[in-house]
């Protein structure tokens, strides 16, 4: 489904991704782990088409289609969804209006009829219950004053509403309490499907107890330095990144400066 070849990306002249190769098949769940600042969010944002990052080399295809030629919104309509590590607020725009606009943009793209306010309200209420978010949140401004955990659940709710082909979840488990982690994991598991791929960025192997990945990758210094199965996460937890010969961020930066 998703194929990334020798991807290099930089921001403000600084290279962050230094040759990423990754193949994800439909129905698979991949987990990406790695130290802070290693480029996990950058990879997620680049896949979604954030223009702040410059692609200097490499290619990304989704079901054979060249993603790099598509605008952010076109990629979204092709089925790429990104759950943000830091969801941004849009004051005054109700979550309900935002979500309906998004769902209708997708439907429009597929040539389906738009959903009216009443139909959408019904759907949105159901989905909000699925992530244990009070339907009152639908009336509030997008992420406006949401707690960290509420924002994350709101992201998963959006994934459930938009039913993407590839869901990229950037640290959707961070900052969640134990119950919320369960709720979010259930939401992600509900997303698992034959025709859908999931790429999740996480720091915690405990998430992988709830959502069992098919593959685990370690991203360090802008490259995937190791790939394996579920057991790789456990090993990392036990032995730390040092085990893979990965230096911490400062050290790496100091080295690259030399």
């Amino acid at each position: 489904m998703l194929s990334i070849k020798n991807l290099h990306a930089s921001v403000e002249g600084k290279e962050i991704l230094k040759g990423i190769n990754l193949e994800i098949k439909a129905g698979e769940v991949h987990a990406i782990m790695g130290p802070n600042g290693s480029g996990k969010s950058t990879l997620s944002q680049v896949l979604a088409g954030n223009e702040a990052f410059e692609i200097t080399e490499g290619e990304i295809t989704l079901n054979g289609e060249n993603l790099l030629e598509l605008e952010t919104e076109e990629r979204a309509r092709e089925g790429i969804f990104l759950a943000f590590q830091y969801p941004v607020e849009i004051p005054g725009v109700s979550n309900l209006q935002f979500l309906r606009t998004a769902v209708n943009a997708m439907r429009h793209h597929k040539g389906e009829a738009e959903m009216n306010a009443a139909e959408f309200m019904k759907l949105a209420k159901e989905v909000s219950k699925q992530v244990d978010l009070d339907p009152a949140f639908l009336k509030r401004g997008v992420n406006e004053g949401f707690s960290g955990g509420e924002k994350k659940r709101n992201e998963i709710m959006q994934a459930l509403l938009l039913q993407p082909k590839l869901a990229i979840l950037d640290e959707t488990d961070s900052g969640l309490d134990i119950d919320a982690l369960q709720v979010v994991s259930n939401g992600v598991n509900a997303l698992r499907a034959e025709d859908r791929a999931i790429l999740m960025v996480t720091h915690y192997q405990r998430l992988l107890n709830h959502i069992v990945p098919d593959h685990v990758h370690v991203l360090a210094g802008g490259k995937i330095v190791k790939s394996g199965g579920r057991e790789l996460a456990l090993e990392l937890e036990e032995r730390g990144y040092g085990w893979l010969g990965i230096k911490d961020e400062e050290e790496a930066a100091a080295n690259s400066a030399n």
Partner: protein
Amino acid sequence: MATTDQEVNELIKREYEHGFVTDIESDTFEPGLNEDVIARLSGIKKEPEWMLAWRLKAYRRWQEMDEPNWAHVGYPKIDYNSISYYSAPKRKEDMPQSLDEVDPELLKTYEKLGIPLHEREKLAGVAVDAVFDSVSVATTFKEPLAKAGVIFCSISEAIRDYPELVQKYLGSVVPHGDNFFAGLNSAVFSDGTFVYVPKGVRCPMELSTYFRINAANTGQFERTLIIADEGSYVSYLEGCTAPMRDENQLHAAVVELVALDDAQIKYSTVQNWYPGDENGKGGIFNFVTKRGACIGKNSKISWTQVETGSAVTWKYPSCVLRGDNSVGEFYSVALTHNHQQADTGTKMIHLGKNTSSTIISKGISAGKSSNAYRGLVKFGPGAEGARNFTQCDSLLIGDRCGAHTFPYIESKNKSAIVEHEATTSKVSDEQMFLCRQRGIDPEQAVSMIVNGFCKEVFKELPMEFAVEAGKLLEVSLEGSVG
């Protein structure tokens, strides 16, 4: 991500939807202004002597006045002798008594503007006093209003039929000498609306006037007077669009509101006059004086405006809070793009005890436009326990536009309380990226974000106006992010 400047510009460029000129023969004065012109104007309108005297007094006063230059706007000098001061639809001898008699060309114009009178009559229960150029040509819903005792007619009619009311209140809120443009208006006002709501009456429907500037080179000088007698309530809607043309057109209206004891007036405006093209050519000069006087105790006047049009706007709907416990409100959305310039705000003059006022101003600037909020909150010595709350928010789209805030506070009473909040924000790249990541078009995203920014004001508008306002912002913005 960052939608590029180029995209922004393209989105902003969207052409003015209402740009067309109605082909109606107009009976128009040759350009120029002097006492004879005023006498002729007054004569055509069959005005009583006192009215002509009033106009001439205003004219003499105006001649001694200087055009204000303190507003944060710039525009070429206006030659007041190059303006024609009267224009009327051809068949003035024989004014239509019903819609059937109205020139079909004219009705078509209204239809293009999305105001089919036929429909409106049946539908919204809105009485429409339509002003086409200078003379009212169609008025609907007079009957149910008459039953309630509400007078809703053109100001010309009111001068003839209700001279006591007009003489008592015309100029009582905005006197001749108030400012340059109000002085000019007083001398040459063409027509406008008159409303009187009697004691204890809640006006049975929203009253509404649509304005349209048409005949080339004709200044528009509307005059509106609304009086809410003791314990009455009225909501008035004003909306306007203008056809596209090249010359700048001057519009200098005066609106006076008078609220007696326990009366309430709600005045809402959606203004979408031709703003000029993307190079700043053409467009309406909108120099309006709008003021309400809460002369009675416990009275309330509330201004809500959505301003998206005009090349240059100079407008400060204000409240004079004379009655004890009276309340003034100002809710404003002003959007500028391309080369538009707006200098708008309000004045809240607290004179009575325990008077209170609220100002919510939302300025949105895009393109190379300039958008200024200018507000004065003044407490007189008798304003014991008075208070004001001001919130002034600016939203910038792109990085070539400007927002300015000029809040002035004058207090002669120590017990008065003022709260002022101001913010400036940008439509951020992160917000745009979030919207686009969810499949939403950039221009739709901007419009959604801007609408969200304006929510507090939109909710003050009557329902049908709120929808129109949202649409208007979308049209005026169509893209625009930096």
